[in-house]
């Protein structure tokens, strides 16, 4: 276990001006009944970087990010966001903290009783309460343009293809200007071209909004395109941690199997 775990210092990261720790996970454990999903997870997310978390299906990647945003409660371990331990915050403080985190759900999670426009307005109205109608509609148009779907404004989610839904969902997430982005499998179930577009979009969001992101995926292409640093999960633990170049040239058999 943890044979190839490397201690990467921030200086070795590919984008040079990252240093501050934005998010830190320490010895996180989570089980469902007698199924131990996360055994001992620790890692750091630095300011401005794209951290890719790779792992097989069912290795607990979604559970990990859900613990980070507080949708699931971890059994033990600590999560610090902007230096504050999330377990020490009360509900109101945690809600304020959560507004700085954008979460792209694996399933998209668009509200299917609402139009695309209402979907995009929903977090805007609820998280930033003082916006005027004009500001809201400007913001909706801006994010829709960012994901290249300006015509979809009045459509229902059911009328959109899977890839379009993912992009609308992404638009909804970035609408509230999050500082940390958590992408849960942004490219799963999409064709290679659309996946590539989404990966490009993730990089553009990183540049444009200066976000620090955790990208959960088992799509190696997306990982290589977006990552500054890669973490590999196996059996509920961090199996490998490296920057992209080291990762590609690794001769570990488990990692190599991801490339085939």
């Amino acid at each position, binding site marked *: 276990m943890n044979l190839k775990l490397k201690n990467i210092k921030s200086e070795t990261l590919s984008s040079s001006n990252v240093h501050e720790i934005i998010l830190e996970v320490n010895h996180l454990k989570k089980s469902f009944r007698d199924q131990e999903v996360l055994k001992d997870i620790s890692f750091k997310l630095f300011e401005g970087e794209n951290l890719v978390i790779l792992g097989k299906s069912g290795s607990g990647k979604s559970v990990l990010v859900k613990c980070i945003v507080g949708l699931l409660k971890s059994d033990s371990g600590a999560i610090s966001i902007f230096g504050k331990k999330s377990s020490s915050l009360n509900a109101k403080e945690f809600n304020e903290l959560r507004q700085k*985190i954008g979460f792209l759900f694996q*399933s*998209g999670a668009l509200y299917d009783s609402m139009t695309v426009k209402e979907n995009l307005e929903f977090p805007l109205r609820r998280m930033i309460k003082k916006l005027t109608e004009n500001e809201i509609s400007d913001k909706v148009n801006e994010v829709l343009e960012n994901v290249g779907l300006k015509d979809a404004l009045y459509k229902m989610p059911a009328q959109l293809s899977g890839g379009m839904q993912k992009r609308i969902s992404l638009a909804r997430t970035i609408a509230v200007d999050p500082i940390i982005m958590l992408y849960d499998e942004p490219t799963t179930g999409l064709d290679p071209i659309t996946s590539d577009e989404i990966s490009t979009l993730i990089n553009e969001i990183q540049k444009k909004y200066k976000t620090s992101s955790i990208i959960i995926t088992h799509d190696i292409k997306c990982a290589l395109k977006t990552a500054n640093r890669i973490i590999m999960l196996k059996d509920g633990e961090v199996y490998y941690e490296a920057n992209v170049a080291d990762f590609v040239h690794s001769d570990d058999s488990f990692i190599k199997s991801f490339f085939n």
Partner: protein
Amino acid sequence: MIKKDSISKTEILSTSCKSEKININSTLIRTFLLDIAYVTLFLTKVLKTMFSSNFEFKEFLRQCYKIGYKSLPLLSVTGLILGLVLTIQSRPILIDFGAVSLLPSMVATSVIREMGPMITALICAGKIGSGMGAELGSMKVSEQIDAMEVSSTNPINFLVVTRVVAATLMIPLLVFYADAFSMLGSWLGSNIKGDISFVLFSSQAFSHITFLDFLPAIIKSFFFGSVIGLVGCYKGYNAGRGTASVGVAANSAVVVSSLLVIIVDLIAVQITDLIVL
């Protein structure tokens, strides 16, 4: 030898059946107790949220429209047929007793006291309960409820409280509406074989109706509404993972809320009986 062997086998079989039965019983009791615990937790959560958070008025109105307005066609037809059938069925008997002039007031009493609220509640348990179970269930499965939570919106407040309050307020109104259509149906029924003007029919129908006929019916309708809303939301909100659980949620919402409506009715009738006498 063979006999002995076979005996011991049946013995073993019967003992293993017994232990299995005990096992099944104990898991049944366990799940039943767990269910009660979960329901209590859910109820306290809903009540706490109801009194501590801002009321989502817009969503509440949307639900009123969905629960109230959208059920009108169904209840018109059901109410009309209920009155018609009651009248046609009772007419021959009343003629035998020479009491056909009591027909309107008999139908009115039974519709207002019992049939109207009961039929409305059962129909709404089917229509609204299953709708809530399926809608919230699919929102849960497709992570929409989680998405709401990360958008700083309390899903219990936004989804559950609005639906429960809307159902509680709309069902009594729907009961009135169905009652009116039943009386219309009854008048039509009286006119199939007889001839009675609407004015005469109404004055005969309401001559024996007092406020005490209405009051218990209205009060129990509020309870029917909240039971339907709570069960539908509970089943949907606590749907399992995977799409199959949406169907399960919708189905059990209907079954449980219909059953509870009947039980609440039984209790209400007993209480009314005690108080009015």
